[in-house]
């Protein structure tokens, strides 16, 4: 049913329309995060922005990264942040507002910085997009699972057989380091955030 249509999502004729929709969603929701008044609304707009970013990843043929973004960022980190908001709330829908002067200064600096970045982006003539040589692992667009898995295990089939005699080391060592890092960080965070007697009054 779907076999003849499983081309690259971005190469499909509707791909650019979808890209524009999700890019606008990501950008506008990011601006809404800055403009929101309560922290929970900020979290809401941030969820929409990160979800649109995940959709952009799917359009860029990075299926695994997009799914990891949804699972870890939206389903994990943001839930953690919202729990933090609930635990640190001083009152119902309390607004900690910034003064208008600071808002204007921040907006001016942000726009200047955005102009600098956009100017540098458009000043570079990017090379033509090329289909990356998959080497011995003929993958289709978006199916990056097996190459990613093998890269994390220390082999790079897309590089090892196509290039010279140098075997590339893969990403096994960073993978192990990140695993230990996560363990240490989460034990430390759980210890830091353990229930203690709350300070009485201020």
């Amino acid at each position: 049913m779907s076999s003849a249509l499983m081309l690259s999502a971005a190469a499909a004729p509707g791909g650019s329309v979808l890209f524009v929709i999700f890019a606008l969603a990501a950008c506008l929701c990011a601006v809404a995060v800055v403009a929101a008044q309560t922290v929970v609304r900020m979290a809401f707009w941030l969820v929409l922005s990160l979800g649109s970013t995940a959709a952009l990843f799917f359009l860029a043929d990075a299926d695994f990264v997009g799914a990891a973004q949804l699972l870890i960022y939206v389903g994990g980190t943001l839930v953690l942040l919202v729990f933090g908001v609930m635990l640190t709330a001083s009152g119902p829908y309390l607004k900690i507002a910034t003064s208008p002067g600071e808002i204007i200064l921040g907006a001016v600096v942000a726009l200047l910085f955005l102009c600098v970045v956009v100017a540098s982006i458009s000043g570079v003539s990017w090379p033509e997009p090329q289909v990356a040589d998959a080497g011995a692992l003929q993958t289709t667009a978006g199916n990056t699972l097996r190459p990613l898995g093998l890269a994390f295990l220390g082999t790079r089939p897309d590089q090892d057989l196509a290039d010279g005699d140098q075997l590339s080391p893969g990403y096994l060592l960073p993978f192990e380091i990140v695993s230990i890092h996560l363990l240490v960080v989460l034990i430390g965070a759980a210890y830091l955030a353990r229930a203690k007697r709350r300070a009485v009054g201020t």
Partner: protein
Amino acid sequence: MSLSAYLLVGAVLFVCGIVCMATKRNGIGVLMGVELVLNGANVNFVAFSKYTQLGLDGQIISLFVIVLAAAEAAVALAIALNFYNNHLTIDVDRASKLKG
């Protein structure tokens, strides 16, 4: 859909994150700014992975960024909770005990 479009999206996310970090007084709001900054960088990595010879390395690095951002959010939240437990407020402007 070109590389520049992706980089523009990344730039907008990055700038919004910076503004969030600079102007929000709620500590958790500052953390949300950090998440936006890291997402802007991730969009850049994935775009370069698709449109240049960077290939798989861009996606691997963005996976590492996602995982490390989750770890960093956990620690930052633990610190914020500690701060709240000691001062009964999450307003970062009140964290001024070390002021000279």
